[in-house]
């Protein structure tokens, strides 16, 4: 079945192919000084929802009613002090954290993941890549958890191709934290080879346990270093990322 045909009456709308149900989803992308993937994710969401999401400047203090908040990729505050450290204290983040704690889903991509970790929405820390290079290439991810609102569109164990572009993507967590992530099934994506095998070469940054993306305890905050919005349209070279946005919007509609 094609896009948009699965739910109710599919309609082509200006800006996307989302269904009427999807169009009710209120989504927002937070824009920090230095964010640079905000418009990419705006596009991916517009296709999935059928209407562009709201773009909210970090200096705002209030949020409208929202079904989804996205923390996008980029170099908020130039990554000064630590990536995501100052952005985590932006005026808008008090509201974002409050909403997240009250159950609003948050999709935190790359710099967004760093911000979420610094804001205490997710555990662990993102260290400099073990190879010390800025890694900018496609990687393969194994979908370890298919029963989350973010990954319902993938099958368990499915391997997808998504680009990374980061210098501090080396996910670190202590032994107790890792045990909790594993026991609670919160490791959503792991780096892998194209055939799904776990190999050292497949991990672009040395992250612990090949972790590429994790959920919080309530399974409503997803942080991941790869950029699903950058391979969400065949014109970009691939669309493995599209199912993440589609399944998310379907879950929220």
């Amino acid at each position, binding site marked *: 079945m094609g896009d948009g045909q699965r739910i109710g009456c599919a309609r082509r709308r200006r800006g996307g192919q989302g269904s009427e149900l999807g169009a009710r989803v209120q989504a927002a992308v937070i824009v920090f000084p230095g964010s640079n993937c905000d418009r990419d994710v705006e596009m991916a969401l517009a296709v999935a929802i059928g209407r562009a999401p709201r773009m909210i400047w970090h200096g705002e203090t209030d949020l409208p009613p929202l079904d989804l908040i996205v923390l996008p990729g980029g170099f908020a505050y130039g990554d000064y*002090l630590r990536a995501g450290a100052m952005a985590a204290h932006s005026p808008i983040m008090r509201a974002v954290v409050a909403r997240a704690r009250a159950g609003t889903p948050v999709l935190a991509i790359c710099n967004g993941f760093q911000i979420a970790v*610094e804001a205490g929405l997710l555990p662990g*820390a993102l*260290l400099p890549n*073990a190879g010390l290079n800025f890694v900018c290439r496609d990687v393969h991810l194994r979908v370890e958890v298919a029963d989350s609102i973010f990954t319902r569109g993938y099958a368990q164990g499915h391997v997808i191709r998504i680009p990374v572009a980061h210098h501090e993507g080396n996910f*670190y967590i202590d032994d107790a934290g890792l045990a909790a992530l594993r026991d609670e099934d919160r490791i959503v994506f792991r780096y892998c080879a194209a055939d799904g095998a776990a190999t050292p070469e497949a991990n672009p940054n040395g992250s612990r346990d090949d972790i590429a993306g994790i959920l919080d305890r309530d399974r409503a905050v997803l942080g991941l270093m790869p950029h699903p919005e950058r391979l969400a349209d065949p014109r970009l070279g691939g669309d493995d990322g599209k199912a993440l946005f589609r399944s998310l919007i379907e879950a929220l509609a």
Partner: protein
Amino acid sequence: MKGRVRITLKGGVLDPQGKAIAQALDRLGFAGVNGVRQGKLIEIDLDEADRDKARATLEAMCVKLLANTVIEDYAIELSE
């Protein structure tokens, strides 16, 4: 009051930057280097004249922003 905050990675945390520095030192011919860890120095000039209050303020700054206490330790030095 001037505060000097030294921020260092906690013992068990991998420091690829320190490792790169060690390799560069080795290439430059410096023998006997058993390890390098890189940290940060942040100097803050405060209005506060009372040492205890200044220290408390700097502690709060460290915990809240200057250090990521998941992976970093901090040390505070005061001078007039």
